[in-house]
């Protein structure tokens, strides 16, 4: 069974028919070609598939493509600008906030949303807000440092 959708992915509109069972993450990877969004656990635990749907970080493996009809989606591919990396990407780079890199796109997408919405961030708060993202390599310390740095930079720029 199919359903028609019109979804904006990183400023590009995508109008097509998809199977009703198609998850948003599979649409992003297979239809929109945004392979930076990856599937980790496929059970809503790990957060590797985190993208922004109408400005909110969500897990795209636990959302139907049909539910995103009419929505605007931002994936990791849409973060960088012509001037280079997004400040969050730069902070992850500078703080070595990744090892194998599989969870990174999801964590960066959640982190960007966190810094946009929370203006008073400390280590404890960040650790609580990234509970929905699992990283099996880093032990999180450098990730937290990177987000703190990006938050400070956002504040200076504001």
């Amino acid at each position, binding site marked *: *069974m199919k359903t028609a959708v019109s979804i904006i992915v990183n400023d590009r509109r995508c109008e097509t028919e998809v199977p*009703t069972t198609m998850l948003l993450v599979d649409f992003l990877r297979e239809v929109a070609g945004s392979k930076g969004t990856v599937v980790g656990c496929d*059970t809503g635990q790990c957060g590797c598939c985190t993208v922004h749907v109408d400005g909110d970080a969500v897990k795209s493996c636990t*959302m*139907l493509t049909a539910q995103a009809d009419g929505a605007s989606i931002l994936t990791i591919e849409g973060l960088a600008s012509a001037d280079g990396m997004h400040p969050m990407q730069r902070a992850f780079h500078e703080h070595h906030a990744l090892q194998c890199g599989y969870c990174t796109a999801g964590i960066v997408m*959640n982190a960007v949303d966190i810094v946009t919405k929370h203006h008073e961030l400390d280590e404890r708060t960040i650790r609580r807000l990234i509970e*929905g*993202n699992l990283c099996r390599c880093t032990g999180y310390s450098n990730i937290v440092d990177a987000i703190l740095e990006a938050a400070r930079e956002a504040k200076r720029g504001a």
Partner: protein
Amino acid sequence: MMYEFAYVRPASLEDAVRALRMHSEAKPLAGGMSLLSAMKLRLAAPTHLVDLGRLDGLAGIAGNNQAITIGAMTRHADVAASPIVREAIPALAVLAGDIGDRQVRHRGTLGGSVANADPAACYPAAVLGLAGTIITDRRHIGSDDFFRGLYETALETDEIVAAVEFTRPARAGYMKFPHPASRFALVGVFVAEFGAGNVRVAVTGAGPRVFREARLEAALAKEFTPTVASAVAVSAEGLNSDRAASAEYRAHLVSVMAARAVAWALAPTSQS
């Protein structure tokens, strides 16, 4: 991979009810945080999903001096951030802000949680503890009559939760001991005092469904203090026993969480 299903997007609550009535194996889809996960594991196989996501009238928060009413499709993140909820029932805002993780809170809804009646979900404890009323497309159901058993409620198969009304307490608190892996409540306790001698205590996670703890209610009605709560010996009879916790440990946690919830109610902070 999920089993095949037809996707239906009704334009009104009436249309949604009609779609459910037409197909006996249809299910309403709210945020999908539990239902879609269950479908992916093939634990649920509805023939039709009736998506309530576009029924804007089902989302929103309104309050007066006696109660606040929250639309069924209101997301956890919106309840947590609502100035109305934070002012009237801060414990409810903190509870909503601590469900799952923030990505889940951007999708999960009050109505979905209440209709699903997961035995370890947080919202049912607030609904029962705050003497809530479940407002459906056709009737009002008191929280004491709503939660019937494991994932079982008083809802008819074609009935949809439209909103939940929460009674404003004098003070309230919620504390949970999260499961180390799932972060669901191993035990969660919601306490609410509605004036001298009127206390409700609702427990989630500990048994097959959310329930009121009469001994804690009676003791706290006399004196609303953490010391009184921790002195109450809760019976382990009928409580869950699994790898994470025995029934006896859960019984112990009920009075510990109740004491912490009372302490929070007496001196609320922005975090749990």
